[in-house]
């Protein structure tokens, strides 16, 4: 339960930070989750970077939300849910639905024929909607 040392390119960074401050990885993970939550709220809340006139664009906010979501998701799944350290079968189990979720997001989520976002064609399934209009 946190006594063993985490290794690997990302988990190793968490472990190193934990060693530096003399706490366990759970604590470091908790701090990182809190920090990035503040960061994503700030990214949406401020229209310009505080102290400057540099405008925060919608695309930049999108990027921040997605990257922060991935970091927070990794932190929770790897350390709080112990996927890092547990047998690999649990990671495989956790990843199993991801492909179906991705298919749903692509096949349903991005398939709006009257979407205003002008999504690129590779991103949007070319469904035949003739059954709706005929």
């Amino acid at each position, binding site marked *: 339960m946190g006594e063993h040392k985490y290794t690997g390119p990302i988990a190793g960074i968490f472990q190193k930070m934990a060693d530096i401050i003399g706490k366990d990885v759970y604590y470091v993970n908790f701090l990182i989750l809190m920090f990035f939550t503040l960061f994503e709220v700030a990214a949406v809340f401020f229209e310009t970077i505080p102290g400057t006139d540099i405008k925060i664009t919608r695309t930049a906010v999108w990027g921040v939300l997605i990257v922060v*979501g991935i970091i927070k998701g990794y932190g929770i799944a790897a350390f709080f849910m112990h996927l890092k350290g547990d047998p690999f079968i649990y990671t495989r189990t956790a990843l199993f639905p991801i492909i179906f979720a991705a298919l749903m997001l692509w096949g349903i989520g991005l398939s709006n024929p009257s979407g205003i976002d002008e999504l690129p064609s590779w991103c949007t399934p070319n469904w035949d909607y003739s059954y709706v209009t005929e």
Partner: protein
Amino acid sequence: MSGSLHDVKNDVWMRAVIVSVILLFVGGAAYGAFAVGVGSVKKTDWDAADEVLVEAKTNWNLLNETEAGGTSEEAADIHEQKKDARIAYDEAKEAEIDAHLSYLTWITAGKTLLVMMIIYAAFYGISGFYNSIQPEEEHDDHHGDDHEEHHGSASPIMMAAGLMLFMIGFPGFVNTCKSLLGLDYQAEMGDFGLSIVGAAITIIGIGNWWNEDLKGQHEQIASSDPFQGQDIRKAGMWVFLISETMVFASFFSSYLRMRTGWCTEWAVDAGKCEVVDTITASDLLRHEVGTLLPGAINTFALIISSYTIVLALKVAKDTEWKPSENALMAKMFPTRKKAVRNYLIITLALGSMFIVLKLVEWSHLIAEGFTIDTQAGSIFYVATGAHGLHVFIGLLVMLFMVFKADVLEDGYNEQNGQGIEYFGLYWHFVDLAWVAIFPAFYLY
């Protein structure tokens, strides 16, 4: 492999009945303090703000009807008065909205706490009473006798039957509740009674399950691939979480499909379209600290609760645990058993706060006209409501874990700490789902 791990007498469940009475008092006190006490003060403030608004509006209307005088000086004077009246009206309107939302905050918090405490009390009271009157088990030492393995449990059948009755009567139950709240609905007492009986049977089924878990069983190990050698309950929890992932994926894909077709403030800012045709919850929430605060606090609350449940597990598994040298921490967590219990109580409190703030936030959104009968409203309330329901179900499980941590002689320890670990997986998943819901519905 048979027999109980812990020698727990059934009369220990009377403690749960006592706790249920205390919870009812807490709920009543919270309702009295928040909804009746502060709520009535806020209602007076709201009424006063409303009167000021009516006065400002009347003044503004009167000035608008006033014909400008002949001289340019008189016309300028009327213009100035109109300008002042308009400012006063706008200020009065803003003050009235603030007073209304402040009133809703306290009244909703009070009502939510009361209802939550009644449900908590029902779980403790009904299951506690049911388990306390059960005959004590005979303790014959048949450990290791394979014929005694895998006792079937009646709990799932009881819960399923109870839920069926509850759902059959549910529409009538809702209408009767609305009627009892003074709304214009016809009470349907037959269906209401059916739902109550169904809820009671469900709770008894859950209570029976609690009793079985309190006494404990040896952990069953999977004997074939792909989970060979792993705890069956842990593997089962992960498979369950797969299905939960798909539930939330369906919400997100529906949301994404609708969202790509809306011309929202965000889409206009990004240059995708020109005229806003849909107001989303995030348009109402993300621009001001006050409106974004409940969602942001809830995000922090869930992260902190994820951490506290990890700490509960860590302490339970740590055979060399010692109290902190910090005086306050040592007082809060004096022994291993109490440390685990108190970390669980903190998690329970944070989860309860999440539900209260969520409903406060919903009440504000509904007051501002963002209701479930719009496309944006329906997906928002269904997705965040389903998540809230998951949190609430987790809290009901946690009620038992707090009880177990308190009544077992050693509480949770290195031998039975898996219960916290497996529940923790569910709780972290709920946190993980919020990591996606919060930016998607509150920030974007």
